[in-house]
């Protein structure tokens, strides 16, 4: 059964949530839209079409202190970082929610990442269905859809005079106010999307490991980290210890397989020295290694890397190139 929020109802409800929780929502920052903690409902960009960065940063921040060690009078104390408050991640689109569900796989797999797990369990996801899609969107090819409720606790769909409220989990149900009316109107049909033939590629990509395609594609790659940092499913990180006057902090920061030092090991050996090897890693992790470990493709079709790559390395084009290469191989 679907429920209904008028726009005022929604606003009042969010106000009440803000009293006890951190609410993270899409906010306009100059020309950009970013997920940020808000202080009042008026800051939310309800009509946003995309955010520059995915909301993954709420669970895996660009940088965070995992724990600190303090030394005082010969005593050594380890102080873990604690998650202080419950939170709401509001307004994320279904593709980004799927991104979080995919991040859960490596981070929640036993023994699990304590900080990620704490944030995840104390955050409820309130999704916003996409009424419009952009030309670079391809979520339906990656196991999601503009109206997919699977990975959120509550899904809202905007209609003319308010929002359809779809309660997905018990966690979501517990957040909602009592006495919401039932929505009896029509549920809008989700927009249609382009089809990207990813299934064909997963089953055969292994055979293209040594194909010259990768070096050719990498010719124009700048090896910046934009694709990885805007991606909702890229989760690699680096760690360093910072020490200052008897206090040591262990810091984790985003890092990506595209940077030159990423795979450099102690002793100076680097298994991926060429541009092609580094670029191939990005696609192999998404379409081969992640599916081998966790059964799903590590791409949600949000289109961010397509939009933000400064030299137009387009993941949809890579997929169709790989398909053609395989067809040419099997045909010969």
């Amino acid at each position, binding site marked *: 059964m679907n429920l209904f929020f008028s726009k005022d109802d929604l606003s009042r409800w969010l106000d009440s949530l803000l009293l006890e929780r951190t609410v993270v929502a899409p906010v306009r920052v100059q020309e950009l839209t970013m997920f940020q903690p808000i202080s009042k409902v008026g800051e939310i960009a309800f009509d946003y079409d995309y955010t520059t960065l995915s909301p993954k940063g709420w669970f895996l921040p660009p940088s965070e202190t995992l724990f600190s060690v303090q030394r005082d009078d010969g005593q050594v104390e380890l102080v873990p970082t604690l998650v202080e408050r419950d939170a709401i991640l509001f307004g994320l689109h279904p593709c980004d929610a799927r991104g979080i569900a995919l991040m859960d796989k490596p981070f929640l797999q036993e023994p699990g990442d304590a900080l990620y797990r704490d944030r995840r369990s104390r955050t409820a996801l309130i999704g916003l269905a996409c009424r419009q899609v952009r030309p670079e969107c391809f979520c339906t090819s990656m196991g999601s859809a503009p109206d997919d409720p699977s990975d959120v606790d509550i899904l809202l769909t905007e209609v003319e005079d308010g929002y359809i409220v779809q309660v997905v989990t018990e966690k979501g149900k517990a957040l909602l106010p009592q006495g919401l009316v039932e929505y009896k109107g029509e549920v809008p049909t989700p927009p249609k999307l382009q089809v990207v033939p990813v299934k064909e590629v997963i089953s055969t990509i292994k055979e293209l490991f040594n194909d010259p395609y990768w070096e050719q594609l990498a010719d124009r790659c700048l090896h910046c980290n934009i694709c990885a*940092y805007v991606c909702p499913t890229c989760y690699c990180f680096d760690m360093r210890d910072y020490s200052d006057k008897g206090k040591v902090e262990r810091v984790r920061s985003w890092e990506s397989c595209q940077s030159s030092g990423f795979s450099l090991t102690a002793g100076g050996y680097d298994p991926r020295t060429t541009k092609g090897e580094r670029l191939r890693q990005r696609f192999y992790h998404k379409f081969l290694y992640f599916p081998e470990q966790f059964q799903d493709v590590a791409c949600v079709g949000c289109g961010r890397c*397509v*939009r933000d790559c400064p030299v137009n390395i*387009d993941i949809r084009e890579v997929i169709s190139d790989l398909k053609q290469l395989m067809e040419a191989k099997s045909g010969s």
Partner: protein
Amino acid sequence: MDMELIQQIRDKARNLLEEGTVEGIIGYERASDGVTARPFFAYEPPAAERLIFDETCTHNLVKYLLDKKGKKMAVVVKPCDSRAINLLLNEGQIERDKVFIIGVGCPGIVETSWNYKSETLQKRCRSCQLSSPLVYDFLAGGEFERQAEEETYSDIAEAEAESLANRREFWQEQFGRCIRCYACRQVCPGCYCPVCFAEQLEPLWVGIRIAPEENELWQTMRSFHLAGRCVGCNECERVCPVDIPLSLLNRKLEKDVKELFAFQAGLDPEEPPPFATFKKEEKLEFGE
């Protein structure tokens, strides 16, 4: 699109590949959005047919020559990009006889983003004084008559007039957004250190934290390293995914270097950047 210009580029590229003068061509082709352009590498003569040139060809392709050291390559170069050629020649990073420069006359480049091109010329193009590349082996399209505005650095003067506290607040906010993706560095023709200070461990100049203080240190050192070397292609600002107005810093330093040393990077292949030279008479005595 100027089909005549494009045909000249394609013909030249095909000839160079057929005759074996170069191993490859670095040019532009249409991007997957069907609207903008992207860098393109042609190694076989038929691939030359994919080359294009129009008002969306914003990328400075000179950067790619650094990846192809030792190979003879041809590169499509706009007037502004030719300053990067001069910079790299001057700094000994490329060899003149290994590069075949296909210069293009340029009517100016428009603002673009994925799947979008505007009608407006980029700011840097509105004040560009170059009618043809400063250095080339072949010129496609001939010289353009340009009616450029004079570079007045009016926005820099405005920023300079702000109080120190305001400027600090402004840049803290801008750098607070930086995600240290290093796209600004990766795209810059003047950034080619084998180990960037940002990744050096001993000594550790700047940590890995993606946080305001360290971002600020990263961006400050990056722009100072380009003082008197930045050729104004503005690629760093174009690629920044979080819209940090990096050109304000670059152009401030350009303005200062121009005023102090009467020098602009990349205009002359022989004259070294001020911070790369040292004259004996500049030596200071102890305590001076």
